[in-house]
């Protein structure tokens, strides 16, 4: 184990890993990486590596858990035994039970569970490598995986932590800052600013809390853009392949002289383009091509946020009802 560093932030305002106070770590998001799952996402948040899979809506086992008017959502956060310095004993512990509970509660309200009575939506997140901020990384991946599974949602959920080191608020704590810092506050929110997860431990004054909450919201917004882009890229890639196949055959007459192997070359360029895109996922800015392609194709199920709006109105009132029942269900325990 490393020891507590003397200073977390140097005189230039730079943190031990080279970030400024309000910067998040590099994020890499890959969508649809597992073949058996209905939706999946691999996500790296700094050195955190997490894999999320979504199954469902599917039959509920055990049967007695099923709800006649809506789907139940189950969320399993699990840490691999090799994900941390000292081997973690496999299986659920109290921490992962709590993390699973609050994470499920962070997502459940965003899912149109009333569309799928008597069924279960299962979210599994495996932490393959842990480096501070696993619950937020897991939640980010889970949210993307749900979208990838085509589960109708009111919006994506994005999560990010804020903390305090050297009496300064910093966004997205790294391992040392988490271990030896003065406070840690993970939050999750929807793009329209509703906070769906909020935990805090350590020491924050009311004023620091207010500022921290704002910083964390800014972090969540950045994460949201990356989640959105990853989904857009993934699905535009899919439709691009389809549309190039169509246009390629149409264009044969015009382009044939210049490029005899039209279809294959088109495919090749697609592939290289895609490769670039994956590299680019960290940066929010340059997305000329992708933005265009997105318009061409689809918003499909990849983006649930906007599309479902008409329903939200109708369901807004009912939502509360649903909440209760789930509340009650949980008080069963």
């Amino acid at each position, binding site marked *: 184990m490393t020891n507590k560093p003397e200073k977390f932030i140097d005189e230039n305002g730079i943190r031990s890993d080279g970030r400024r106070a309000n910067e998040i770590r590099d994020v890499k998001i890959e969508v649809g990486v597992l073949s058996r799952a209905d939706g999946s996402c691999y996500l790296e948040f700094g050195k955190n590596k997490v894999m999320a899979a979504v199954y469902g809506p599917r039959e509920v086992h055990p049967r007695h858990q099923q709800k006649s008017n809506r789907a139940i959502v189950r969320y399993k956060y699990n840490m691999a035994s090799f994900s941390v310095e000292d081997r973690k004993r496999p299986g659920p512990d109290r921490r992962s039970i*709590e993390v699973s509970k*609050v994470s499920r509660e962070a997502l459940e309200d965003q899912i149109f569970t009333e569309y799928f009575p008597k069924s279960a939506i299962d979210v599994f997140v495996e932490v393959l490598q842990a480096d501070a901020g696993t619950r937020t990384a897991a939640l980010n991946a889970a949210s993307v995986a749900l979208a990838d599974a085509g589960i109708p949602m009111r919006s994506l959920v994005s999560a990010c932590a804020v903390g305090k080191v050297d009496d300064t608020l910093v966004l997205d704590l790294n391992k040392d800052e988490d271990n030896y810092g003065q406070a840690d506050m993970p939050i999750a929110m929807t793009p329209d600013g*509703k906070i769906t997860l909020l935990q805090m431990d350590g020491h924050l004054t009311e004023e620091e*809390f207010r500022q921290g909450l704002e910083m964390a919201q800014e972090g969540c917004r950045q994460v949201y853009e990356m989640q959105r882009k990853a989904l857009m890229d993934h699905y535009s890639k899919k439709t691009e392949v389809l549309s190039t196949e169509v246009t390629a055959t149409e264009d044969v007459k015009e382009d044939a002289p210049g490029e005899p192997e039209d279809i294959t070359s088109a495919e090749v360029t697609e592939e290289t383009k895609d490769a670039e895109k994956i590299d680019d996922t960290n940066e929010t800015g340059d997305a000329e091509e992708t933005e265009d392609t997105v318009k061409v194709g689809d918003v499909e199920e990849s983006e649930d946020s906007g599309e479902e709006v008409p329903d939200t109105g109708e369901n807004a009132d009912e939502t*509360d009802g649903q*909440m209760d029942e789930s509340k*009650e269900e949980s*008080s069963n*325990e």
Partner: protein
Amino acid sequence: MNKEIVSIIQKDQLYNLMLKGERVDGRAFDETREIKIETGVIEKAEGSARVEIGDTKLIAGVKISPGTPFPDTPDVGVLITSLELIPLASPEFESGPPRENAVELARVTDRGIRESGAIDLKKLCIIEGEKVWMVFIDIHVLDDGGNIMDAAALGSIAALLTATMPAERYGLGEDTPLPMRDIPVSVTAVDIGGGIVFDPSLEEERVANTKLTVISNQEGALAGMQKSGNGSLSPDQINHMVEVACKKAQDIREKFLEI
């Protein structure tokens, strides 16, 4: 009767009251129920407290004994908090290992005490790397009348404040009080259809979408927080909850607890 149906009827009633600015038991939105704390109720325990908040009743017991420290903190005492929702307390609780609700309550209680530095755990070291005092807080809920969270936190801190370290029994010198530095107090509020009510009763808790627990320390700073339940809260709601919770905590501390 089917409790889902009951809850829908209740919800309706509570929502309607909420619109008129009223609560079902006539309290103001930020008014807590009557609190009773009795300490030293279990002679065999090193510290104990019986807490009542409205209908909610629980007993927190503290046991202290020497043990081996964790390898990564060889000179620091050990604090372990557990909470059981035993079937005696509610028809909705079942026996068996703690489920997620009990685990969450225990962990949030633990977080408040640990993160506020309420116990000076460094002073619990007997021989570095070999022997430290281990403090076990066990919370037994006797009657679930809503807001077990605040009652559990209150019971724990009250029990700790009256706890002694049984050094004589283990041949480690004289008995001394547990070294305490701070008094964290937890205040919970729920969102019922946009209205924020503090210290929710069982009915209110059932009907509420979202719950926020705010634990603050003596100087009025935050030591822990937990959002629970599957709804969401706006930043404005959260800021309001935090502000009122810190004030309420100060009142409760002055009235009931002292080092």
